[in-house]
């Protein structure tokens, strides 16, 4: 989600001016650090939820001890017991069951406290996890709450998993699409069933940013900020960012191809040396 920070997430946060925020799925803290910087500047508090982050997150959190509360548990266990927040950054377990129930829990908590539900910013509402589940810990889920899955990769436009695709080290649902599958599907199902007026906006790049604004939190200033994301200028800036990203990937591909060439040739040379040494050894052995 950090790639959305400067041009999208930060303007939303600064316009909404939350006093309490929640981040579900902080991982390396790339997004957490600027959020905590905002908190330090404004007195906002951040609830950070991530049951198994890498050590890098703790280094980030250590720099902002007064601005956060950290929960080393799963979101569905934490949300019901903490005070409602004004804004949520949701980038946790990317599957229908978890996202749908997180939304239910967040809205239920707000209703219990008699406050407006929060603005929610989601990552991964575009390919590959918009319409396909991924499970960090599938065995912890009820079998009825998960689709058949495998540790194989994904390619755009192909429903079946493939060895040649991306994210092949994650537990991905075998097929894309269909009911109760994927992050975006969970949001749409929640929106259709909750009966609370809200607006959902989707930026379909860098794996997708979703912006869910309940009517109770809508202001003309916030609407103007979100509308500006879809202006011609903003979309052209996005094209430039995507092109830069694509070129960096191609450059890295070239580096890897050069390494592959160097290693393949070294291997072939070593193999021919081994064969030559074998022949020498054979010739040197006494007959019989």
């Amino acid at each position: 989600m950090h790639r959305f920070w400067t041009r999208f997430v930060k303007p939303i946060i600064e316009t909404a001016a939350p006093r309490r925020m929640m981040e579900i799925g902080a991982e390396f803290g790339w997004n957490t650090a600027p959020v905590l910087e905002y908190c330090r500047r404004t007195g906002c508090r951040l609830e950070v939820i991530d049951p198994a982050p890498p050590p890098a997150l703790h280094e980030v959190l250590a720099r902002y001890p007064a601005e956060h509360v950290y929960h080393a548990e799963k979101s569905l266990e934490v949300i019901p017991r903490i005070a409602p927040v004004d804004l949520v950054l949701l980038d946790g377990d990317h599957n229908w069951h978890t996202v749908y129930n997180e939304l239910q829990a967040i809205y239920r908590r707000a209703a219990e406290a008699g406050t407006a539900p929060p603005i929610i910013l989601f990552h991964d509402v575009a390919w590959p996890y918009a319409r396909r589940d991924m499970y960090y810990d599938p065995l912890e889920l009820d079998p009825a709450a998960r689709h058949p899955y495998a540790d194989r990769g994904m390619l755009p436009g192909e429903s079946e998993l493939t060895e040649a695709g991306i994210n092949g080290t994650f537990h991905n649902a075998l097929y894309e699409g269909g009911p109760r599958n994927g992050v975006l599907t969970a949001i749409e199902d929640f929106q259709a069933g909750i009966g609370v007026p809200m607006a959902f906006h989707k930026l379909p790049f860098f794996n997708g940013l979703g912006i869910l604004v309940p009517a109770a939190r809508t202001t003309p200033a916030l609407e103007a900020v979100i509308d500006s994301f879809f202006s011609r200028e903003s979309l052209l800036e996005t094209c430039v960012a995507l092109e830069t990203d694509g070129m960096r990937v191609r450059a890295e591909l070239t580096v890897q191809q050069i390494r592959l060439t160097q290693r393949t040739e070294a291997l072939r040379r070593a193999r021919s040396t081994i064969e030559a040494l074998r022949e020498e050894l054979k010739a040197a052995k006494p007959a019989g």
Partner: protein
Amino acid sequence: MDIAPADVLNIQDIVYKTRPGRIITVNVAPGILVLLDSLLRLMQIAGARIVNINGDPLDPYVLGEAERALDAEENVLVLFAPRQEDHFPLDALRAYARFVSCRTYLIFLGSVFGQPWLGYSKNWFQKAIRALVAEAPFAIDYSRDQQLITTCPMGYLQRTGGLVSVLDDDEFADALSDE
């Protein structure tokens, strides 16, 4: 074979940027060998060494020993100096070009010479270089020819092609037996 100060700087820069694990030197002057050895030590390139060849560069035994000395090194640089009698050393260039790793160099020392007899016929070394570049995946790095004085014009040949495709299957690569 003497080289100009600008070529010393070029060689130093190439070693610094490509960080070769092996440098094959073919009939290179002892002073340049000392320079290369110093560079490898100063740059602390782990395990790097020089494979020095003197005499007939096309002797099959010499070529075999050179190849064996490369082991499984992935990053090989070649410095080639023609002998007095090598008027058109294309075959020798071909023989050593195959050792050069992708994105590193075959450096032809003394390419400014190459006039084997008096008269109009000259630049035979550069003709050999052109012939090699026409058939092998090398490009002349003209950015290294910009100095006022160089004894290696067109002599910095960078291997730019011959990339292994990720789609190339090498069925033997993982099948080396333990015999």
